[in-house]
């Protein structure tokens, strides 16, 4: 259900890690075979995108038991007062790994975790952090309370053992429209909507980075289980107006320029248009899901998968509103 957002698969352990595993197995023959008992470990590979700022890229796949749901971009920002995270990943295990990586990179504890929106791949890792450092908008906090168990249920089923120990985060701090100074950095928090009922975007003034959450997807198809397309377009216009050095999308590469915003808009227009056109031709859901996408979407990861989901999300609304209402015979 809507709990299971985007998705992706896993690159698995690095070569060095595999080597380590084999050596360990050779040295300790009583250990169970690595293939069956290897402890699940997220291979977090931080990429520096600005001084003291790293992104951990998610894989461009649906959530699977192979990738453990590590499909969304997560950011780490160093400040003199401690580290700031933007989103926390899909599971408690991811959150713990993120905490360790942050200590390694910055040598400081995490003093703030901003959660952008109600999708498992972004928020469930926050259960590894003290709720006093976790900040979210009012609507997200309320939705986590209401739908959080459905999110974890869905994720336990899809991602399996990766999820062990994951609970529903209870953000202890309210993010509102405004500015928060942490150390030498100043975070402008901007509450938008469209991808979900509430999408928190952050602009960090010192670095000029704009963290768009899942309002922007780049080279990976956008997901629509909780979307309101008109609100989404309006939010993209707001993001476009923010002067920035780099835009960090929720999924896909960090880039300067407009490409992420343009592509997300074009994807939404394409999907909405194709669904509306299929409705006008009288197609039912499975028929519409089989209609090919235009070729410009070919390079976009999981395009067909997400288009099919969007048909199931968006078509019922057209049927409810646009099929002619008939008076009783």
């Amino acid at each position, binding site marked *: 259900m809507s709990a299971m957002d985007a998705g992706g698969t896993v690159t698995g352990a690095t070569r060095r890690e595999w080597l380590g595993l084999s050596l360990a197995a050779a040295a300790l023959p009583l250990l169970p075979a690595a293939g069956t008992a290897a402890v699940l470990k997220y291979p977090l590979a931080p990429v520096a995108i600005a001084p003291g700022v790293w992104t951990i890229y998610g894989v461009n796949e649906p959530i699977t038991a192979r990738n453990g749901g590590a499909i969304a971009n997560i950011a780490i920002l160093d400040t003199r007062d401690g580290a700031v995270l933007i989103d926390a990943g899909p599971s408690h295990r991811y959150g713990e790994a993120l905490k360790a990586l942050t200590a390694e990179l910055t040598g400081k504890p995490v003093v703030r975790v901003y959660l952008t929106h109600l999708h498992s791949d972004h928020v469930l890792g926050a259960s590894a952090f003290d709720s006093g450092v976790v900040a979210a908008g009012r609507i997200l906090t309320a939705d986590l309370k209401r739908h959080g168990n459905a999110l974890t249920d869905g994720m336990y*089923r899809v991602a399996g053992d990766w999820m062990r120990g994951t609970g529903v985060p209870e953000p202890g701090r309210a993010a509102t429209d405004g500015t928060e100074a942490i150390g030498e950095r100043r975070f402008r928090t901007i509450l938008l909507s469209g991808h979900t009922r509430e999408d928190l975007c952050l602009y960090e003034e010192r670095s000029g980075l704009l963290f768009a959450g899942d309002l922007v997807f780049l080279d990976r198809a956008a997901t629509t289980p909780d979307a309101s397309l008109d609100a989404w377009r309006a939010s993209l216009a707001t993001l476009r107006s923010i002067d920035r050095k780099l835009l960090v999308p929720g999924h896909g590469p960090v880039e300067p320029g407009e490409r992420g915003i343009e592509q997300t808009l074009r994807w939404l227009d394409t999907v909405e248009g194709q669904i509306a056109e299929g409705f006008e031709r009288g197609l039912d*859901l499975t028929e519409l899901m089989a209609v090919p996408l235009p070729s410009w979407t070919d390079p976009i990861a999981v395009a067909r998968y997400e288009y099919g989901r969007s048909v199931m999300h968006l078509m019922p609304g057209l*049927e409810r509103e646009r099929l002619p209402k008939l008076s*009783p015979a």
Partner: protein
Amino acid sequence: MMIPFPKAAPRVARAAAEVPRATAIRDPLGSPLWNDLAGRYLAGRTIVFDERVQVVLPHVTENQSQVPVAVDARALGRAEEIAVLVDLHPFPLPLRLEPVAAQAFVAFRMKIEQGTPIRAAVRQGDVWHVGGRYLDAAGGGCTVAPVAEKKIDWDAVGEIRARLWREAEAGLRLRLRLVHPMDNGMIGNIPAFFVETLDVTDAGGNPLAKLTLSEAIAQDPTLTLLPDAPAAGSVLKVAARDNNGGLYKAEVPIPAKTAHLGEGRL
């Protein structure tokens, strides 16, 4: 005092004549319940697994309470009856269609309790042609209250929205949505309340398609059928009845022109 545990009544052996021929054929979906289902719903006739009977399912179960299913057996030609069978389900016969004057096609949405084979048995004379696929799904579409609170607009119950398209080759395409809670009686304190029959006729009342629906059909039944264009009249009539005796009727105007269809039809 000990109360002896009551013994189950001995199972009555099924008469040999009732055993469906399917028992001799391996179920392509390997379901342990297939023989029971075939015995219950298809007994007495020859059963063949036939790839011309297509069950089209989504690539991912997005919502267990609204799973889209399309049955397309047009490759067989005309059929007398289509029964949709769902092995692992509290209501294993969600829908039965008599396409009296319609093509062997129906699309609908159903609630799913767990991953299960979904099949269509299409009858021509004394032969059931059976096709199907496995649907992977999480549980809970039938017995767990929906996560997003189920909203029922009681004033709108019975509202019918529908539209007809004129297809090539003298056929029509009917898409229809009937507002109804389709409560299946499995959620505490909500009694069963669902649409049991839905008939499509021409303006003179001659049947084109007769549907029997069950508790398994999703809230606000949304259907696609391919009735033949009637010789006379400018409307098709739809009449549905629920298990409380509620009758819901509508007349759907037949468009004059053939639509530009293009690709995309199954």
